[in-house]
């Protein structure tokens, strides 16, 4: 009794065929749907490199039973911005040197977008706490925090410009 179901990923209905019922969403995204942004390092919720949005919530896709996520919008980094036109957060990560090996980056980009959507002007403590589920072994986090702060400032400036 293998599973057939449909997931709603980045605005597109994607059919999943002949899956084992216990497959997690990270596995299905990568191995069945070819979406390689979310990364798997621990598959136990510790590292955050597999972070995606499910139903608007930031979660570890390795802990989501894929077959239970039917009917909910799923967003991965591939769905944030079209290829070649990075989002403001993606561009800030590049500009600030917040990317080294890049393994943690997709998870952090999703987490940073989620943070800035909910808390447009986070303090450094808030950034550290909100990103505490995303482990980076390379950067030491300083430049990641800088990138998030830079986006917060840029968005505020843009808003002020739009209002005047």
């Amino acid at each position, binding site marked *: 009794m293998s599973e057939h179901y449909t997931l709603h990923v980045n605005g597109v209905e994607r059919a999943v065929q002949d899956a084992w019922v216990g497959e997690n969403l990270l596995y299905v995204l990568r191995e069945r749907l070819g979406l390689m942004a979310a990364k798997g390092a621990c598959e*136990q919720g510790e590292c955050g490199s597999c972070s995606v949005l499910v139903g608007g919530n930031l979660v570890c896709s390795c802990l989501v039973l894929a077959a*239970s996520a039917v*009917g909910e919008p799923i967003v991965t980094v591939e769905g944030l911005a079209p290829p070649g036109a990075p989002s403001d957060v993606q561009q800030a990560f590049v500009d600030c040197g917040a990317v080294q090996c890049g393994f943690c980056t997709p998870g952090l980009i999703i*987490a940073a977008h989620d943070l800035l959507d909910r808390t447009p002007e986070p303090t450094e403590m808030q950034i550290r706490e909100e990103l505490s589920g995303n482990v980076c072994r390379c950067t030491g986090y300083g430049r990641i925090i800088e990138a998030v702060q830079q986006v917060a400032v840029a968005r505020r400036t843009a808003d002020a410009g739009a209002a005047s």
Partner: protein
Amino acid sequence: MTVLVPTSLDEAIAGLAANGGATLLAGGTDLMVEVNEGHRHFPWPDDGATIIALHRVPELATWTYDVPAATVVLGAGVTWATIEQPPLRDLVPALAEAARTVGSPQIRNAGTVGGNLATCSPAGDGLPVLAALDADVTLLSAGGRRTMPVRDFMLGVKRTALQPGELIESITVPVLQGWQGYSKVGVRNAMVIATASACVATDVPSRSIRIALGSVAPTVVRCPVAEQFAVERVDWDALTVDAGDAVEFGRLAAAASRPIDDHRSSAEYRRHAVAVMAQRLLQRAFPGGER
């Protein structure tokens, strides 16, 4: 299909009644770790067992404040992310403090209070708070409802009173009038399992002080001797406590703990940590005392 995603409580209960051995899934933050590690075998092609995912059941995902009863009724599927924010943070502050220490934002967005209770890990951060607040748990099956104290529901390490065919419907938490707080010792600030933890909750009108400990016994421990001692020593008019009495309170709490040596810590360290946490929590509850 072997995964049911009910969208009402009736549907969930019917699914549970029709599939005796069904596995319940809430946020998946305990269960999926076991599945990923191959420790929990989900239905393989021929054994036809059922998984019932509860995250779309609205009755389980909501909470209510029953003002006349002075209780908060938390659906089993309420997440830690909801509990750590106002308005719940203002009604059950110690539970919100515990919530804020659970895993990471990703884990708190998915993980639920009902899943924490059903897992019944000695280190479950919600459990000492629910025990200190004398919370009740309501279990529901096709046969009906039953309610029992959370302390009676927790039987041992990962063992509960939940029967096949039942699910946790809600947890009823008294809203007290007095300071309450949660303290947790671990190797770092985020994403850490408790080495030892403690909750102190007070209710000034009834002159009640409760302390419950986590990670220092197979399940949560309440410390009646320490509680009685504190009730007698606190100055209930000034809301103060002597520094020396707070130290003794810590010693009595540590004496009630039954910690073990394991890969995370030693029994001796855990006992010491309990004494320090209990003392500090009592002093925070009754801050007028000397340091």
